[in-house]
């Protein structure tokens, strides 16, 4: 055991930190913060930022060089993330593609698909949204009804015609592409007969209806498919194997890939600073939150330690299994605890919106944190996974 970073890793950290300090849009530089990601203007501004990161080969450090990465290891990726959140850099507009779809393309995509989609994704020239949930298929994802029917010859050169409805697609309002599951064999048993498709959002027959979220902005959308024709080379993995292909993506979403600890340790650092400020103003009132502040800060640090523990195991060749569900339970509850605690410290100021009628950082973060126990598989589903697949309890 050695919990220190190597000199090479420290040098990488210094490089990332210097680049971010010079380039992150900020008020001081007169370039930021960027407008909200959930507006057309903000979406465009975030694309420009992603392109700048791509040009510096920092947008996807862990990818192979040929697709715009550096071939860096998981630890370097964690270092990048720590620096990214430390710098309070913009939200990643491309994160659905980079963190959820890309691992699946690396695993199941043809070389042509990898070359076609990955660099465009890494530079945010093409931004992806996820088309999984349907109005009647949320936690019970295998209950999807959207269909794809065969058109043209079997084998090479044919196409599929998609119809149905997807919902809760984050970034759906402005995304260029959608990845989603459709039923290709309606006679097959629930978990079979599904196929994983890649669909351009400007294809004829695709209609997007943005949905306003809890904060009033259109962070996600419904997507309607009416006879949308998709060629064979936009099928990811085998026809009829969509469920197992999709589960690979789910694992990366629940597991390490998306949820770097940096987001939570950064927020915990701000919580400590807020506590220190409030303790000067009103030590008695702040003191009542002391234990909750300590718990939240410790939970964030414990998540970081658990991530290093897991990464070491992954680097040793053991894949992340159902324990990814434990990570999801821990980080989503931690995120909520940090923000709830900050609102308590702010007291009567917590409810107030800013001059533009927007929630301030803590209220905004709280609203965002509330989604955590719901998306990527609700926490109730995660507890079932932990109980059945880690503890070995009988299925219901």
């Amino acid at each position, binding site marked *: 055991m050695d919990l220190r970073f190597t000199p090479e890793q420290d040098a990488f950290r210094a490089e990332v930190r210097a680049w971010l300090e010079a380039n992150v849009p900020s008020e001081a530089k007169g370039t930021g913060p960027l407008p909200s990601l959930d507006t057309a203007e903000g979406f465009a501004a975030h694309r420009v930022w992603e392109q700048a990161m791509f040009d510096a080969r920092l947008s996807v450090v862990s990818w192979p060089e040929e697709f715009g990465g550096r071939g860096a290891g998981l630890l370097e990726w964690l270092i990048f993330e720590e620096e990214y959140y430390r710098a309070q850099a913009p939200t990643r507009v491309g994160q659905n593609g980079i963190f959820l779809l890309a691992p699946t393309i690396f695993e199941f995509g043809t070389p042509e698909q990898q070359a076609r989609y990955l660099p465009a994704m890494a530079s945010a020239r093409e931004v992806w949204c996820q088309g999984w949930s349907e109005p009647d298929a949320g936690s019970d994802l295998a209950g999807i009804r959207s269909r794809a029917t065969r058109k043209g010859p079997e084998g090479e050169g044919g196409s599929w015609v998609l119809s149905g409805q997807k919902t809760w697609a984050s970034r759906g309002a402005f995304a260029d592409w959608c990845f989603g599951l459709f039923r290709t064999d309606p006679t097959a048993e629930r978990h079979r007969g599904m196929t994983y498709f890649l669909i351009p959002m400007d294809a004829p027959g695709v209609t997007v209806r943005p949905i306003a979220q809890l904060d009033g902005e259109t962070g996600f959308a419904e997507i309607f498919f009416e006879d949308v024709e998709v060629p064979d080379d936009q099928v990811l993995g085998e026809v009829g194997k969509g469920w197992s292909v999709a589960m690979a993506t789910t694992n990366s979403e629940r597991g390490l890939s998306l949820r770097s600890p940096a987001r939570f340790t950064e927020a915990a*650092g701000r919580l400590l600073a807020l506590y220190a400020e409030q303790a000067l103003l009103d030590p008695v009132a702040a003191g009542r939150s002391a*234990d909750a502040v300590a718990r939240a800060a410790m939970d964030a*640090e414990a998540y970081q330690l*658990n991530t290093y523990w897991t990464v*070491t195991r992954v680097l040793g060749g053991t894949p992340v299994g159902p324990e990814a569900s*434990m990570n999801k339970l821990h980080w989503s509850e931690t995120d909520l605890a940090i923000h709830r605690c900050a609102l308590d410290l702010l007291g009567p100021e917590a409810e107030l919106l800013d001059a533009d009628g927007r929630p301030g950082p803590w209220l905004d973060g709280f609203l965002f944190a509330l989604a955590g126990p719901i998306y990527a598989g609700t926490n*109730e589903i995660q507890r*079932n996974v932990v109980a059945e697949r880690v503890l070995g309890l*009988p*299925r219901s």
Partner: protein
Amino acid sequence: MRFAFEDRQVEFRDQLRSFTEKECTAAEVRAAWDSELGWSPDRWAAMAELGLLGLTVPEDLGGFGFGFLDLVLLLEEAGRSGLPEPLLETVGLAVPLLLDLPGPEADGLRAEVLPRVAIGESVLTVGLSSMVAVPAAAGADLLLLEDAGELHAVAPAETRLIPRPSIDGARRPARVDWDPTPDTLLASAAESAPVLARLADRAAVGTGALLLGVADRLIASAAAYATDRHQFGVPIGSFQAVKHQLADALVRLEFARPVVYRAAWSLDSAEPAVSRHASMAKAYAAEAALGAARTALQVHGAIGYTWEHDLQLWMKKAWALSTAWGDAADHRARVLEALLAEAAGPG
């Protein structure tokens, strides 16, 4: 960055597990709790044979000279098996404390005591004046006691013990009445201060490691029971109300592990934030074990509430150890203080 144990450390843990599965069954734990001493001198001798007792004793004094990273998995196993012997007190606390003492004055005592510890012929314990009672005091061959900030080495003959029985039948705390004299003095208050600070850190991490094992045992017992026990014609573990409690208990345990292991590394690595890491370890492990005890009892239902069922042994360890050497809230307060100081920077 490599956050994993070495093969040697895992193998030693596995060796101890094979030993406890034969020599420290639940029936053996009960027998120890019912005995006059609270633990078994025969098992202590067998632990010496395994090399456990010389783990922290330097090589030139007949031991292995290992650190806390080598000990932490063994303590976890001791908690899991309910091992009644004072492994933490002797090997985890008293021996390192003797090694921390400055000056050649302590060399004589080290040369006299440590080789005997390694072969199982000397049991040690440590006590602070702030403690209501000192664990393992009755069976100890030498007590290392703090008074007015000074450290003293006190022979059992120079003490009067008033037992203060614990709900954990192996801990055997006792109030120790004794008189400090120049003969018992080991180190002045100034010399003792840093030694006592390290003792507090080791005690927090060591108790945390025991609690990890206790929580592991409680959750495993409850999961096994939930699989066997049928109600409404199905195993109770198939109900989500049971599953979700156990899943939450497991999450608390699995996130406590790296926190405790990191603290063990920090102890061995002279990490500046070691005290914060140690407090975080104790706080996290205590919450994990208390939560596991609560869940395990609820899952077992009435049978878990009986004297006859072995669940009580591990619940009682969880309750006793969670407040020993500072409860979770004490340690969280220390963590917060340290975090605020770190954020404010030096000076």
